[in-house]
């Protein structure tokens, strides 16, 4: 064969050789996760419209809530301003920020997973040694994100079309636009770091910063600015700096400002170009931020210390999130409770979640319950570190040392079970700081969640103890519990179904009656599950 045989195509297209194959391959690898992300994002939007329709049934009620947003700074920080009191307008207000954040997280996970994670694992080397252009992996990753965001846009646009086609289209495209801005941002970050986990963490931090900028900007301005409520003027500069803020400035269902859309495109294109430029300047597997060397001597000496060392970073991140989230929710409690209190339907839902006493207590109880549900995710991920250590073969050499299996597992379980207590305490501290009330009852209410969280953690231990193949099913259980706790009350599901979740049995605190019975039973169940799981860990073969 001669050189000419290789030079059939122009140089430019060879940089992208194999992109189509890689894209198909990516979509195949993501055939479960991406549809779930997409479905959750779209369902969240649709269910918001439905619950708003039930709660604020009449135009008068909707106008009422929209007007109250004008004066409530803290709620504007949470959700952004209301620009229109139609069902579509309220949907865009209520869920836009969160759908955008969700699309952003989905996009960053997709991009880092198919770029830096691949390089870090060494798989990319093998792929790139085949007929694959230098730019193909990054292009395929961005296209995968584009497909996912495109489907989100399509589902949102179609399902909200009944509220007005232009608004639905703008809303869908705006959510997808935020997604693509963070996809390309992740592409840049993934060129800089050598670790996929760090790239995900940094981009996640950037999304958090975008949220905070928008929140600060929105709380600073006075109310919405459409004709209906306008006092004139536009968003604050801070909101305009944040890509998440662009979505509200697109004004879906409130006189769409289509000229905002090119902003998403421009940002995505510029960031994509930067990522390509960086990718072209570095070695495969290399980064621009070198990994710092560690100590030549170690202080770790026990399995427990190792477990703590491996999990402390994650726990720190969760803890900061719980503290900040607690403070944020605590800060809006007063206003939110007033707002909800004026509406019978909303009050009913909140009372179903949070209890029958005063509406402020009910709102606080709802928030405490939500933190409990999120902590359930923490405990599953923390318990399943055991599973990760085993399947990655890092557990094997440790267990070949003079470390009993129980002691090895106990190290991680102490972090998982104890970390839950710590997280709920931090949420309580945050809530009471934000709310500005005496902290005792709130802290107590937070701690009452712990047995329910432990029960789920115990289930994860049991599944792991039975067989490593069964362990990931704990995520399914966590998903079910989240669904029941989050959406169940709004759907008015029968009590028997809600009772599947351990959280359904907890007393509604603060405000409600303390009931030690169910709390004790849940703690007992958690203990039995953990013991059963540990017995399994002791008896079964360790896999590799």
């Amino acid at each position, binding site marked *: 064969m001669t050189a000419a045989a290789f030079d059939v195509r122009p140089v430019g297209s060879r940089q992208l050789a194999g992109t189509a194959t890689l894209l198909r391959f990516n979509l195949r690898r993501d055939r479960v996760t991406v549809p779930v992300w997409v479905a959750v994002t779209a369902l969240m939007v649709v269910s918001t419209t439905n619950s708003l329709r039930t709660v604020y049934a009449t135009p008068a009620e909707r106008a009422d809530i929209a007007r109250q947003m004008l004066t409530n700074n803290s709620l504007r920080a949470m959700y952004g301003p209301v620009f229109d009191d139609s069902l579509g307008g309220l949907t865009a207000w209520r869920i836009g920020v969160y759908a955008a954040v969700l699309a952003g997280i989905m996009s960053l996970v997709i991009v880092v997973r198919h770029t830096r994670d691949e390089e870090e694992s060494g798989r990319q080397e093998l792929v790139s040694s085949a007929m694959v252009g230098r730019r193909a992996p990054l292009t395929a990753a961005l296209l995968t994100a584009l497909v996912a965001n495109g489907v989100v846009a399509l589902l949102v646009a179609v399902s909200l079309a009944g509220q007005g086609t232009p608004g639905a289209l703008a809303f869908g495209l705006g959510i997808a636009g935020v997604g693509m801005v963070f996809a390309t941002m992740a592409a840049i970050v993934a060129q800089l770091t050598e670790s996929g986990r760090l790239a995900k963490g940094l981009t996640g931090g950037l999304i958090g910063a975008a949220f905070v900028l928008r929140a600060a900007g929105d709380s600073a301005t006075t109310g919405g600015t459409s004709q209906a409520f306008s006092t004139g003027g536009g968003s604050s500069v801070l909101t305009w700096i944040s890509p998440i803020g662009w979505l509200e400035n697109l004004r879906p269902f409130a006189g769409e400002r289509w000229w905002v859309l090119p902003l998403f495109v421009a940002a995505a294109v510029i960031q994509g170009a930067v990522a390509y430029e960086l990718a072209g300047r570095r070695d495969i597997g290399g980064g621009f931020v070198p990994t710092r060397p*560690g*100590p030549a001597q170690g202080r*770790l000496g026990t399995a427990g210390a190792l477990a703590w060392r491996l999990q402390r970073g994650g726990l720190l991140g969760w803890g900061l999130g719980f503290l900040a989230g607690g403070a944020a929710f605590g800060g809006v409690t007063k206003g939110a409770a007033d707002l909800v209190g004026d509406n019978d339907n909303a009050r009913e839902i909140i009372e179903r979640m949070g209890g029958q006493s005063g509406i402020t207590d009910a709102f606080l109880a709802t928030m405490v319950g939500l933190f409990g549900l999120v902590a359930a995710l923490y405990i599953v991920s923390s318990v399943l570190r055991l599973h990760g250590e085993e399947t*990655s073969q890092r557990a*094997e*050499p440790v267990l070949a040392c*003079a470390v009993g299996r129980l002691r090895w597992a106990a190290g991680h379980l102490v972090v998982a079970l104890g970390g839950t207590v710590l997280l709920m305490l931090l949420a309580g501290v945050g809530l009471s700081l934000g709310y500005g009330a005496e902290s005792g009852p709130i802290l107590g209410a937070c701690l009452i969640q712990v047995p329910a969280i432990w029960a789920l953690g115990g289930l994860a231990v049991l599944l792991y103890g039975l067989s490593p193949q069964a362990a990931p099913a704990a995520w399914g259980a966590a998903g079910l519990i989240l669904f029941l706790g989050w959406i169940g009350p709004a759907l008015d599901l029968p009590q028997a179904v809600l009772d599947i979740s351990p959280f359904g049995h907890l007393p509604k605190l603060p405000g409600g009656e303390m009931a030690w019975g169910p709390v004790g039973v849940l703690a007992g169940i958690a203990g039995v599950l953990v013991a059963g799981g540990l017995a399994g860990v002791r008896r079964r073969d360790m896999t*590799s």
Partner: protein
Amino acid sequence: MTKANPAIEVSGLHKSFGKTHALDGLDLDVETGEVHGFLGPNGSGKSTTIRVLLGLLRADAGAARVLGRDPWADAVEVHRRIAYVPGDVTLWRNLSGGEVIDLYGRLRGGLDKRRRADLVERFELDPTKKGRTYSKGNRQKVALVAAFASDVDLLILDEPTSGLDPLMEEVFQRCVEEERERGRTVLLSSHILSEVEELCDRVSIIRRGQTVESGSLADLRHLTRTSVTAELAGPPNGLTRLPGVHDLDVRGHRVRLQVDTDQLDAVLRSLSESGVRSLTSTPPTLEELFLRHYQDEAVTR
């Protein structure tokens, strides 16, 4: 010399995973103080055996004693005196090599600080790098330094040198010899036959979960064929009739043949009857010995 307590005693070990019989009545005896080679084709059950010896897997049937104890029931006690190096070393991404070495050392019976420093230097390991930045060979060095510096009686090494360069292979062999001199026992699973030939006092060859050969290299050589090339003064005679002669190739007065090692004597006598001008006799290499077993494996498949 009195026979010391064996370091590892395994008899009739069975282990299946679903329908796969990984171990099918395996026997293994490792004397205290010896370096024992553990050989066999891929998938023959070496790693499964090692993982039973470490108490990570529970055998379905058969008996195993490690350092005189039951490796499943007394795992922690046994492990205090064992250092293990897996074939595929995975490290924690954000722990440095030095931290991992010290962790493993402390989780075993303890670590000899001076020996650790010496080994880090000899293996040319940078202990400050983070786990994710090490190459395969360097990850193995981390595990090897931790094992050789640990204060233990038995080293179980599962293909420990597959990623090492020849210079480091040399360092590794020196380290194993030092271990032997210090009276420690080594079970070495390896595919690098020169390494096994160089280091091992005895070897066990397993196939399909069963032990097919066990003994010193001299014993095993005895069971196989020696190659003989001779230049004779006259034409050879009678060689074809001798038992144990294979692949006989006669070209004028030049003879090449293979002979079962226990029949060598008769062949040499027959050759000297014809008058020997030159003679080379090559003992079987471990490679040949091994290939015979591997090929048997292929044939019986």
